[in-house]
């Protein structure tokens, strides 16, 4: 494992990877990468590499889990054994299960579940490489995969984290900052409705710091949102060009 750095923010106010406190990592998003699925997306955020796949709505199996009034949204967040420096057991860990639930609950408000009763939608998230903030990147990608699958949604969901590192509130924490820093606040947002669907806090923050962190994270979400939209449209750009 890499050594614990002494300073997370240098004298110039820059972070370990040279970012300013309110700067995001470079993000690349691609939609429709897996032809065998109904919808899929791939996101690279810094060193994070995450694949999201969506199947459905389809008949629910096992049948007894189907609900008479709405679709069941199921989500599996999984980290590949090679996604971290120390091999991770491929079996779902306590953390995997918790994140699956958290991501599902962040996406649920965006989907019109009541349109297709007695069916199920499955979301599979594979983290190929992890470097902090995977839950947020996963939500951003999974939401795109849902949209690409043609599932009716209120809005896209975009997520971003903020936190406290060396007494400074910073945006989009990477792994070291997350582990060594004081606090981490992941936030998921439906930008057009201005509704927060996920808000967590890990660590200790004062009330003012918390507010500052949430606002910074929301700002981050609004920066990622246009990229997310662009990625979704990019798949159909050819269609658009022919039109003119």
């Amino acid at each position: 494992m890499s050594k614990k750095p002494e300073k997370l923010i240098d004298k110039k106010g820059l972070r370990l990877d040279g970012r300013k406190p309110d700067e995001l990592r470079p993000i690349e998003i691609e939609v429709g990468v897996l032809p065998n699925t109904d919808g899929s997306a791939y996101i690279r955020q810094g060193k994070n590499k995450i694949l999201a796949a969506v199947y459905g709505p389809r008949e629910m199996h096992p049948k007894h889990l189907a609900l008479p009034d709405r679709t069941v949204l199921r989500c599996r967040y999984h980290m590949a054994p090679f996604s971290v420096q120390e091999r991770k057991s491929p079996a779902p860990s306590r953390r995997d299960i918790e994140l699956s639930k958290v991501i599902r609950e962040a996406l649920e408000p965006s989907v019109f579940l009541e349109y297709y009763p007695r069916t199920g939608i499955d979301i599979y998230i594979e983290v190929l490489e992890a470097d902090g903030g995977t839950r947020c990147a996963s939500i951003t990608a999974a939401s795109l995969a849902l949209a690409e699958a043609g599932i009716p949604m209120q809005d896209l969901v975009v997520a971003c984290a903020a936190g406290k590192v060396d007494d400074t509130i910073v945006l989009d924490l990477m792994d070291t900052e997350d582990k060594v820093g004081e606090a981490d606040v992941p936030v998921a947002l439906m930008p057009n409705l201005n509704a927060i669907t996920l808000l967590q806090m890990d660590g200790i923050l004062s009330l003012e710091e918390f507010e500052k962190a949430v606002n910074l994270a929301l700002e981050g979400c609004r920066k990622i949102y246009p990229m997310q939209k662009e990625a979704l449209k990019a798949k159909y750009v050819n269609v658009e060009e022919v039109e003119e």
Partner: protein
Amino acid sequence: MPTFFERRQLVTPGDLLAEGAYIPGDNTYKEDKKIYASRLGLVEYEDKKVNVVALKAFYVPMVGDTVIGTIVEVGFNGWTVNINSPYPALLRASDVLSRPFRPQRNDLSEVLNIGDLVIGKIVAYDRAHDPQLTVGEPGLGKITRGQVVEITPSKIPRLIGRKGSMISMIKEETGCHIILGHNGMILVTGKSLENEQMAIMAIHKIEEESHTAGLTDRIAQMIEEEKTKQEG
């Protein structure tokens, strides 16, 4: 009462399409007098109605629709048919067999077996029940010849064209008999394999370029070129 997009512009879920006294149409929803898109697609403003033509959608059954499906299960009293939708369709044995039948004696797989293709019409469907098919009308029943192609169900209206202009043109030019399933499955039967191939090519081209103007003419031209190629 402003609208926020040009006609036929690409929108993503959550995009604000119009504000004020507009009526939400396909793939949109209304909240606080504001109309948002709920699917990825192209906006259409029709008077007061705002529609989004989805670029990708799955088939949702509707009573009266003609669909083409595959038998996936043979039961005691009927068959389960995959119609490319979130819900499987049911086809009852009493609907297919005109003679009286007893589940103990008759083997339904002799009539329709797994993998067989059928054209059916949806006679009943609601939120609580799976769709039910009938084959008891002219033109419906087991498919014995021809080829089945699959396209996105949301593009079936484009394939039909205005008052059926597109589909009748293809039928005429290729001499093929074409049956459109509302679920995106299309049966093409022609006099020769070449004719069928030509019709299928045209269908795929329409699916790809469904948003372009003057498509009917271009498709006609394409078929014409194909024809001369085959003759030459």
